[in-house]
């Protein structure tokens, strides 16, 4: 028997939460298109495209930065998935020397704040000529996305296990073909989530990109922050809106691309649970 009263309270809490999440986004939207929004109005007094125009002004070279930024984070995401899948496979299906160490290493970055690591590796990167380079930035981003990628792929690999691959072997498929035709299609849900997660983490990074990228490698995030710190709210909101939309775009594209792949698993038995 359902306890109606408590369910109603929970529902109220749920909707308040949704409100708290949505309202700031709406406000952001409003500010983006605001010309004037004086105190104490609850809605902007006048609207305009000024902020948008300024953001896209030729001298800001926005598209360039945005595009290269998206590519960088996408590269991080794809690398993260590949490395995550490889590592998860090794940890789940094999026994080898140093297995515990690798398992620990996979989650270690969660215990080292990005600032601490970035300041520690900075000099090393300078010596290795990796500072101020795209490769350097990709590397540090990768270090912080891998714990999530490995964890996601590990759960999935564990639930699929080696059983189906074993069956494929005895039916005549080489290890490589077994992986491509049997395991990989079943890993797709995890791959999709991994890419999304890694992209979000990478594109949202500020401090480590700033430090390791120096002035040379600018992601959109780095470009955006000064407008949030100071400067007018409309401009900052415009940048933030563009950031969010570009992220959503990548997530939608990832989703569509993985849906188009042949062999959709049924989702039921092999549903991955991120936990």
């Amino acid at each position, binding site marked *: 028997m359902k306890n109606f009263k408590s369910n109603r309270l929970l529902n109220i809490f749920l909707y308040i939460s949704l409100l708290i999440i949505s309202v700031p986004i709406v406000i952001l939207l409003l500010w983006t298109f605001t010309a004037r929004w004086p105190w104490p109005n609850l809605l902007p007094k006048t609207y305009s495209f000024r902020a948008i125009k300024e953001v896209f002004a030729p001298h800001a070279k926005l598209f360039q930065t945005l595009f290269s930024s998206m590519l960088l984070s996408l590269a991080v995401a794809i690398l993260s998935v590949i490395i995550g899948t490889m590592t998860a496979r090794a940890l789940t299906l094999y026994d080898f020397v140093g297995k515990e160490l690798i398992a620990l290493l996979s989650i270690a970055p969660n215990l080292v704040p990005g600032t601490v690591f970035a300041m520690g590796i900075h000099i090393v990167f300078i010596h290795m000529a990796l500072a101020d380079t795209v490769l350097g930035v990709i590397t540090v981003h990768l270090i912080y996305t891998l714990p999530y990628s490995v964890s996601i792929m590990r759960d999935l690999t564990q639930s699929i296990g080696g059983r189906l691959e074993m069956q*494929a072997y*005895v*039916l*005549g*498929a080489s*290890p490589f073909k077994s992986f491509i035709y*049997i395991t990989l299609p079943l890993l797709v849900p995890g791959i999709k989530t991994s890419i999304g997660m890694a992209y979000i983490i990478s594109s949202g990074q500020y401090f480590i990109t700033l430090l390791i990228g120096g002035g040379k490698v600018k992601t959109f995030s780095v470009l955006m922050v000064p407008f949030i710190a100071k400067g007018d709210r409309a401009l900052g909101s415009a940048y933030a809106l563009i950031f969010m939309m570009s992220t959503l775009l990548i997530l939608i594209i990832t989703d569509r691309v993985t849906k188009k792949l042949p062999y959709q698993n*049924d989702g039921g*038995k092999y549903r991955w649970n991120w936990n």
Partner: protein
Amino acid sequence: MELELRNISVTLSNKKILKFINLKVEDGEFISLLGASGCGKSTLLKTIAGLIDQDEGSVVLGGNIIDKTPAHKRRTVIVFQDLRLFPHMTVAENISFPLKMLGIDKNGRRKEAINLLGKVKLKGYEDMHVDKMSGGQIQRVALARALAAKPMVLLLDESFSSLDINLRKDMQELVLELQREYKITTILVTHDQEEALTMSNRIAFMHNGQIEQYDTPENIFKKPINTIVADYFSKGTYVHGKIINNKFISRLFSSNVDRETGKYKCLIRPSAIKINKFKNGEYIVAEKIYQGDSYLLKLNNTDSNLKLESVVPDFTAIIEGDRVNIELDKDKLIFIPEKQACS
């Protein structure tokens, strides 16, 4: 293709699972690996298929040692207990997967898949999705898929144990039918003695990683080599005694039997005891249990602690509390040499 195992030993997680297994299966023969859970049957299958490496010994297929051949090239196909159909493929795609690996073109694959579906009596199911099928149907798809791989040896790992009894009998018939048609050397792993007895040309009885006895079903049933094998097929009462000059002598009875002189245990199975109602009989019927076509009678000896069991037809007039005398059917007595009691 004939299969031979020479001195196979396998250790897993520091435990010795298989100990010096020697086995020879003739071309086209159907044998069972019979034994309780944990005796190493499935491990042996996986070793034959190349999924597990043996510590010692060799696997010989058609006269060639295949130890170095990778699993996917051995043509030793396993149908696993959990069937392992590929969830992201249709029935036809599952069945034609091995054909794809053999390089056959799309049309040829589909044709063969449909052909095999007909053989397993699932015509029309080509494009069904695997998750929509019943247990019995999935079994047959798994079998069809295994056949598509054109196996030299077919390895069935307790494939029928999850089925209810009617489905199981259907599957057993189907497997035998196809095995005879394609003349594939087949090894069935099972813990069900009835299954082994009805289906196999020979049974290899396994216990603790070793083969205790490898013989025809009749011989294993009538002439078990030790008590472990004997008890697996049916329980009974043991009577200790000696055989001297072809005569078995014990406290309970004596009998002429053509065996070597020595100490023996005589196993008296319920089917070896005939019952006669008798007013002052030596035994009293303690319990009468219905079994369908027959009754199981539990008999207690009136003078000693001896307890026996007997099987009587269902039209019997005997009831609990009756006094009876027993008569031993000499042909159904089983004599096991005392030395080989346990491994």
